[in-house]
């Protein structure tokens, strides 16, 4: 299920539309994931506060979205473009890849809430495919 040129165009356009809201969206998605998929909390036991809107969640949402931004910029070569991040996730963070799906879903939910008219089924599909490709690239180095 590789990204078609149409998918890439849709993703790039939607990312441009998101613009400065990226950090807010990232924080919201992360906060939701921690609440809706409690297993994801196991990776953040070192945080004081895991509730939606808390400082660590906001900060980390920003970090994650920076990674998504990189992926959008390198959409034509995700494996290559995300090599460093892949190594980080594989050797240091060792996040079980199932959690990428959980975060992706929460990201889609936030997009639906923020852009109810623009997040059409076609946009949904393109973004879903992109997030899946991103997750794959992120797990490249796992084994």
């Amino acid at each position: 299920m590789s990204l078609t040129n149409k998918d890439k165009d849709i993703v790039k356009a939607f990312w441009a539309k998101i613009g400065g809201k990226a950090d807010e969206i990232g924080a919201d998605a992360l906060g939701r994931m921690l609440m809706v998929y409690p297993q994801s909390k196991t990776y953040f036991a070192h945080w004081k506060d895991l509730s939606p809107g808390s400082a660590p969640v906001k900060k980390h949402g920003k970090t994650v979205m920076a990674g998504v931004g990189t992926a959008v910029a390198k959409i034509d070569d995700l494996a290559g473009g995300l090599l460093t991040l892949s190594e980080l996730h594989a050797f240091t963070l060792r996040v079980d890849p199932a959690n990428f799906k959980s975060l992706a879903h929460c990201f889609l939910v936030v997009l639906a809430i923020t852009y109810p008219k623009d997040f059409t089924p076609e946009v949904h599909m393109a973004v879903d495919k992109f997030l899946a490709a991103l997750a794959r690239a992120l797990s490249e180095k796992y084994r």
Partner: protein
Amino acid sequence: MVEWTDFERATIQDIFSKINYEVVGPAALSRCLVVYPWTQRYFGNFGNLYNAAAIASNPLVAKHGTTILHGLDRALKNMDNIKETYSELSVLHSEKLHVDPDNFKLLSDCLTIVLAAQMGKDFTADVQGAFQKFLSVVVSALGRQYH
């Protein structure tokens, strides 16, 4: 048996009391058919599913979307016995319809997203958690009689 908090019970009842079945059901099913096109395999006799526009305006899809959403009413009315409540429907989906149960999750995800778009800011993390828990219990019950 599934444990429901008061918040979860109240949230689920509240959501369904306000939902427009004829809008949300069709939107969820058509979104599923577009986002996960392989799910179209179950709807060979629905006519034109050629593209997103065709799916969105297909009356059979709309009708079936509404039917599916009303199927959740049983869970709503029997929250403490969802497993037994869906026993027959599970057999139906397995033995007559031959639906891969993984598809239930795909439809659930689309329904969640459609509801999120409808409810906007009211679809908080807590509400999302309650709704997804409800759907996952139904999905589990629907898959139970497969063998």
